């Protein structure tokens, strides 16, 4: 049976150790939405990457700056939104981490993993940086419920 609509919100400080809270919550919500196995592992890693980017790059590790996370699930799709207070960036300008000249560069794989592991990843930059990720539930449904804006 597909899960009913649910929404959870979490605000963390910009501290690395609090990313584990986002990770744990994402895993719980993904399980609630009936994700399992590789899908669960991949999607929760994508959420971790989004939170880590918000803490490290968006908020510059200023612990007093919040990172707001909203996770919403309905019968068709899981939507996760992560907001920081950063100035944003151009996602199209990010180097391709698979290019041979970049394979030996330590950084630059976070957004790539998010895009590989989620069905949709969108960025919005006013105010702060907002990344919205969507993962469609595997089971088709006749439920007419539509996703509302988080």
């Amino acid at each position, binding site marked *: 049976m597909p899960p009913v609509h649910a929404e959870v919100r979490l605000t963390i400080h910009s501290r*690395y*150790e609090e*990313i584990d809270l986002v990770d744990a919550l994402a895993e719980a919500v993904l399980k609630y939405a009936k994700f399992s196995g*590789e899908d669960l*592992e991949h999607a929760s*890693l994508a959420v*971790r*990457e989004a939170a*880590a980017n918000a*803490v*490290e790059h968006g908020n510059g590790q200023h612990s007093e700056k919040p990172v707001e996370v909203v996770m919403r699930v309905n019968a068709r799709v899981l939507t996760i939104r992560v907001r920081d207070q950063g100035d944003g960036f151009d996602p199209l300008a990010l180097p391709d*981490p*698979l290019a041979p000249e970049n*394979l*030996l*560069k*330590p*950084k630059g*794989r*976070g957004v*790539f*993993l998010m895009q*590989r592991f989620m069905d949709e990843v969108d960025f919005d930059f006013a105010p702060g940086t907002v990344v919205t990720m969507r993962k469609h539930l595997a089971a088709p449904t006749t439920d007419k419920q539509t996703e509302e804006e988080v």
Partner: protein
Amino acid sequence: MDIQSRNREGVTVLEPRGKITIGSGDVALRKAINEALDAGATQIVLNMKSTKRLDSSGIAELVASRSAAESRGAEIKLSNLPRKVENVLNITQIFSIFEILDDEDAAVASFGG
């Protein structure tokens, strides 16, 4: 995350236990690799059988460790990759910059004593 260290036939084996992720496991891995290199290790195996999760910061430390080792004439090989770790390394094509062995014995032996 703690890292077990042992010496086998002149090969330094490091076994991270837990998550290699931003802010904790990645720092611990960097410290363990640097300590091994400072101690003169030139043949290092990272046995990852107990690695529970690897994020992009963990990958960054693997790549940086490879470069640090190479600059000091050392080599790092990986072994015992859990499926989910192997999956992330495949997707990011990091597998192409490391020699990866199925198990620790094979990794140690591959250095040729």
